[in-house]
């Protein structure tokens, strides 16, 4: 039961990662490879601040801001200096590895002896369940603290999703959505596509940094390696979500990203339970994404997350 609740919680945290990928890859059709770096940066920055006795919420938000800045740098490298998108992302991601080591001062920062946002989960648990340590959920029992953490992360994911959804109904958000759909048209309607894409990557990597900050606090440490493979993980979640909702409407895509992220995490947990070697996990994830990308071409309908027909 703990395993299930843990997977759900991490799935919810990583749905913020999926939102970020959704915004860059789907909304503005920018193949942004900053992800692995900005997620770790969010974790590193938040952890370092927490260790320096900052308020955990402020530290988390600054972690998100750090990730956002990284995304804006990638977009600027592309638009100002004409560097290829993939290369721009790789440059920033690579640079961030050193930056993250600098930020943390070492490769791993443990947080167990510091108050983090998960301490609020403890508070929530004692309000909800009083002194009970183990809570029965139908036939199972689970620690109240884990359930509270799950509820907290559920609230965070839902809030982020709702805010994003509302954002995409504003004039600004609508213009951003149009970039991935028809950038020539939106330029002819007076939108500075370079600037708008920069804003999109700022927001996207901000969410990814937030995911990193929360993940570090949930697992109790930040690690310079914590971002590795996260890009593929997020893409997998978005594709899975898209195939679940089968729609191009942004509201459904946002919902799908949460569902995809949670489901993907559960599938992985089950596979590990059945004896999958954790070392093989990234290989299997990559193959799964490959299949998800190629399969629709054979079936000639379905997911178009990564390559969208450009009508330049």
């Amino acid at each position, binding site marked *: 039961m703990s395993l299930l609740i843990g997977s759900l919680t991490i799935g919810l945290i990583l749905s913020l990662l999926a939102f970020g990928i959704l915004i860059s890859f789907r909304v503005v059709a920018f193949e942004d490879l900053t992800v692995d770096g900005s997620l770790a940066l969010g974790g590193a920055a938040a952890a370092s601040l927490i260790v320096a006795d900052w308020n955990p919420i402020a530290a988390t938000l600054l972690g998100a801001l750090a990730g956002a800045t990284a995304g804006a740098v990638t977009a600027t490298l592309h638009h100002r200096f004409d560097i290829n998108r993939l290369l721009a992302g790789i440059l920033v991601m690579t640079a961030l590895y050193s930056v993250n080591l600098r930020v943390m001062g070492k490769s791993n920062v443990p947080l167990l002896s510091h108050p983090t946002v998960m301490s609020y989960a403890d508070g929530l648990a004692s309000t909800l369940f009083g002194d009970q340590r183990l809570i029965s959920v139908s036939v199972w029992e689970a620690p109240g603290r884990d359930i509270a953490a799950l509820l907290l992360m559920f609230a965070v994911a839902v809030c982020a999703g709702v805010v994003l959804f509302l*954002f995409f*109904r*504003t*004039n*600004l*958000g*609508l*213009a951003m*959505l*149009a970039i991935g*759909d*028809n950038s*020539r*048209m*939106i*330029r*002819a*309607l*007076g*939108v*500075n*596509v370079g600037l708008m894409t920069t804003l999109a990557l700022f927001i996207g990597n901000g969410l990814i940094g937030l995911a990193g900050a929360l993940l570090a606090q949930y697992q109790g440490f930040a690690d310079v390696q914590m971002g590795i493979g996260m890009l593929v993980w997020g893409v997998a979640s978005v594709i899975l979500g898209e195939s679940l909702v089968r729609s*191009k409407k942004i509201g459904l895509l946002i919902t799908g990203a949460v569902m995809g992220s949670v489901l993907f995490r559960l599938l992985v947990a089950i596979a590990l339970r059945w004896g999958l070697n954790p070392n093989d996990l990234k290989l299997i994830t990559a193959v799964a994404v490959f299949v998800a990308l190629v399969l629709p071409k054979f079936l000639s309908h379905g997911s178009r997350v990564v390559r969208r027909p450009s*009508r330049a």
Partner: protein
Amino acid sequence: MLEVTGIRKTFFAGTPNEVRALQGVDLKIEPGSWVNVIGTNGSGKSTLLNAVAGAFYVDEGRIRLDGTDITRWPEHRRAKLIGRVFQDPFSGTAPTMTIAENLALASRRGQVRGLTFALKGPRKNELRDRVAAMGLGLENRLDNPIGTLSGGQRQSLTLLMSALIRPSLLLLDEHTAALDPKSADQVIRLTQQFIERDQLTTLMVTHSMPQAAFLGDRVIMMDRGRVVHDISGPDKKRLRPEDLLSKFEELRRANQLDESAAEMLRAQYV
């Protein structure tokens, strides 16, 4: 009022693929005037419109619109003054977004886009009225993705979008060429309706001699990056499609003559 003076544009300059697409174009369009542009393929018609719209910067010359020098303005900045419809019906609309969303995007052309909701109740009703006024019955499909519409319907909406807020200049680049005859007719009728209602200053590239002859109040003909004919006033009123065809024929002969002369010179001197 549009004033284009001495603009030149060469693509791939200094390479074997060099194309001198505009070789010194001067053009002055009075406010409220409708100018048709004709010319053979590759004569520089689209390049002229793209230069005015800011798809690239010209190598030489100046572009003024409403008295402002916009030669060095980026494309998105010029969009505040310019409405455009492209040849390809897929170019002018965002396919996965709804009709209402596309119109909402157009209703803020060149303006600051902030965090107010794009389709608040009254806003949507205003847009519905504008769509209903086109008489295509699309007002009942405002929440459908625009990608589900036909080319003609999409092009009609693109036209509406380009004129939703009154542009100082309307640029139409063969915007009926990709449509079936019936849709093309419909789009041209709407074009006429919008331009006449709002007295729009218009530059319209067309491949159709009847359109060029019977619509608007001036025709310019381009050849090899230059304006070679400029017909307005009473001459334009009398103009028939045959007259334009014979101008094409003249041009073809002259160019052939040029080529045979060049051939002769080459034979003699090379």
